[in-house]
């Protein structure tokens, strides 16, 4: 090859084709999708919790995309029906994830709606799930002698509670737990206009 023009033009055409197929056409195809009837926008606390989820990198171990029953037993594990594009209407950035070091979380709020459980589990996962390898998020909590009014004291099994002290959740821990509880896409996907997949 003797001409740099052929090289550069060819290279640009190649990436143009790829970008057209993988970025532009999906954009056109998906841009008019409406949210399913059962999907609520995030509240500001839930949205802040979602940002905390991103900050701590939860996405590197948890997916948010249950697969079809024909492919994998995700539904039998209680992770929910296969997700549809409309389920992510309010999600920017997307958090579909590529790892399941821990379970899928798209419907964690439906199967574990307890705020106490989530707060305690975030503080020390092994207090609630023996053998878990999830990181502890103690830095989202304060350990003090006495809780101030309005602060949320978390309940821990005796082995994991600091002696003579209480553990209170920082606002961001509450936001994160609120977001996790809000992860509930158990409404029917069939309402969604784009249900054809």
């Amino acid at each position, binding site marked *: 090859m003797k001409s740099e023009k052929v090289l550069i033009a060819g290279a*640009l055409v190649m*990436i143009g084709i790829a970008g057209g197929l993988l970025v532009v056409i999906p954009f056109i195809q998906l841009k008019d999708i409406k949210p399913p009837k059962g999907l609520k926008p995030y509240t500001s606390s839930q949205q802040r919790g979602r940002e905390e989820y*991103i*900050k701590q990198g939860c996405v590197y171990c948890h997916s948010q995309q249950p697969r079809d029953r024909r492919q994998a037993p995700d539904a039998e594990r209680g992770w929910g029906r296969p997700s549809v594009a409309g389920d*992510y209407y309010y999600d920017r950035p997307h958090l579909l994830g590529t790892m*399941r070091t821990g379970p899928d979380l798209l419907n964690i709020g439906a199967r574990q709606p307890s705020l106490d459980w989530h707060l305690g589990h975030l503080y020390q996962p092994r207090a609630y799930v023996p053998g878990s390898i999830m*990181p502890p998020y103690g*830095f989202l909590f304060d350990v003090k002698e006495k809780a101030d009014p309005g602060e949320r004291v978390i309940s821990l099994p005796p082995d994991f509670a600091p002696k003579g002290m209480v553990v209170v959740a920082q606002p961001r821990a509450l936001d994160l737990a609120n977001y996790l509880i809000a992860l509930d896409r158990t409404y029917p996907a069939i309402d969604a206009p784009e249900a054809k997949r």
Partner: protein
Amino acid sequence: MATIILLSAFIISIVALVFFIVAMIRGWFDPDSKGAEVIFAANEIGNPEDPAASPEARKALERTSPEGDDHAPDPRELESRAAADRSTDTITFVFLSCAIVWLLAASFAGLTASIKMHEPDWLGAYEWLTFGRIRTLHLNALAYGFLPMAGLGLAIWMLPRLLKTTLVGGQFALLGAILWNAGLIAGLGAIAAGFSDGMEWLEMPWQVDILLVVGGAIVAVTLVLTLRRRNVDHLYVSVWYMGAALFWFPILFLVGNIPGVHFGVQQAAMNWWYGHNALGLFFTPLALATIYYFLPKVMGTPVKSYALSLLGFWTLAFFYGQVGAHHLIGSPVPGWLITLSIVQSMMMVIPVFAFSVNQYYTMQGKLRMLLHSPTLRFLAFAGLMYAASSVQGSFEALRAINTVTHFTHYTVGHAHLGLYGFVAMALFGGMYFVMPRVMQREWPYPKLILVHFWLSVAGIGIYFIALTFGGWFQGMAMLDATRPFMESVTLTLPYLKGRSIGGALMTLAHVVFAAHFVAMVLRLGPARDAPALFYVPKGDRA
């Protein structure tokens, strides 16, 4: 809609393929097949060259060359090549020094993340060291630190040699490197502090990404200016890869990071278009450019089939760009997109086969050189791992296999086979060749190169085997609804510990490499005579 897109993709694939095969047969781009010899001076073919080899190894290398050693290359061409090297030495030195720093940072971050996987409470109180951040720091320091710094540093060094000129506009490359590193430092700091755009491979906040786009584009200016001053008629295969990579990266990175455009599932498709293209259209071409230049150069043998390398380039450019959605099998992105990516993943066998066959025939009958040349060992290993990881990747994209391996550590093992076994090893090889030229000094302790090589090979071997088996068993456990989910976690623990051992060996290898690098730069260690392969006496350089 889906059928039409799919059908047209097939037709485009076939037409493009036919076009390039015809072009190759007719020699539209390359009427003379002498292209592969452009990297040699007149009468130089048959002379092995490895600046990283010890004097004894160098003699042994010359003995293994079947052509004999009665060649005397044209001294004027060697003189102009020495001038080409002088024009790049400062800039290459800056790039490679940055590469070493990022390599160490990335290695320790990776090792920390790996240990945290099986010791989750270790350093648990430090927010910036939490797994989700240190893992991301590891990836970003490697993907935007070591790999591009080493890859671009080598590219800039090769460019004037390949174009038989001196580097033009080197100050642009230097400025690009400064902007790039400033952006990277800001980006890593942001991730450690918790500011992340939230998408894999695109975590750095888009505000600092601007620095990387501009920095990368400015480095490309040097390429364009040098190309315009070239003294060769023919552009060698390494130039295509480097040139294309330098144009592809800013486009990819820009599209991936534009704020406020992408949404929901579409963003996931874009995310993996970007993610896989960072590998396929940036790191892979830079590493292939390195192998295509240094492997024949060390052996003193031109690439066997130049036409095959042309086919390899264009098929890679076409197919690799479209494989990204194989990361989304089972997700709610449009089905046609996933199918398209699976098909193109399988088509990637063509460029990989073209490269591997070429490498095999180029090295045929000269395998003994591997015993003596440190550079060649790294490059040949990298070439093998390119074939291995690519073929593995093609099959991993098939639905039946992906259903097991998706969401597991198997994928992580595969990613490291590609990025470490292939790309990083190729860049190590290139750095070992280039540094003696840049510093006008031999590597002070040749044995350390051997130590680096074997620690790296053992490390990546343990790493890959542990995660491949662990990940597969994890996937099988997750697919069996009668087994509780926790079983898929518990059973991976021994394999995750194995991964930490592999990672520790790799980190140790990099510490050895970095120490050796520092010793060379500071002129520590035994000073040997200026070797016969240097054409400019030490004193001339100052």
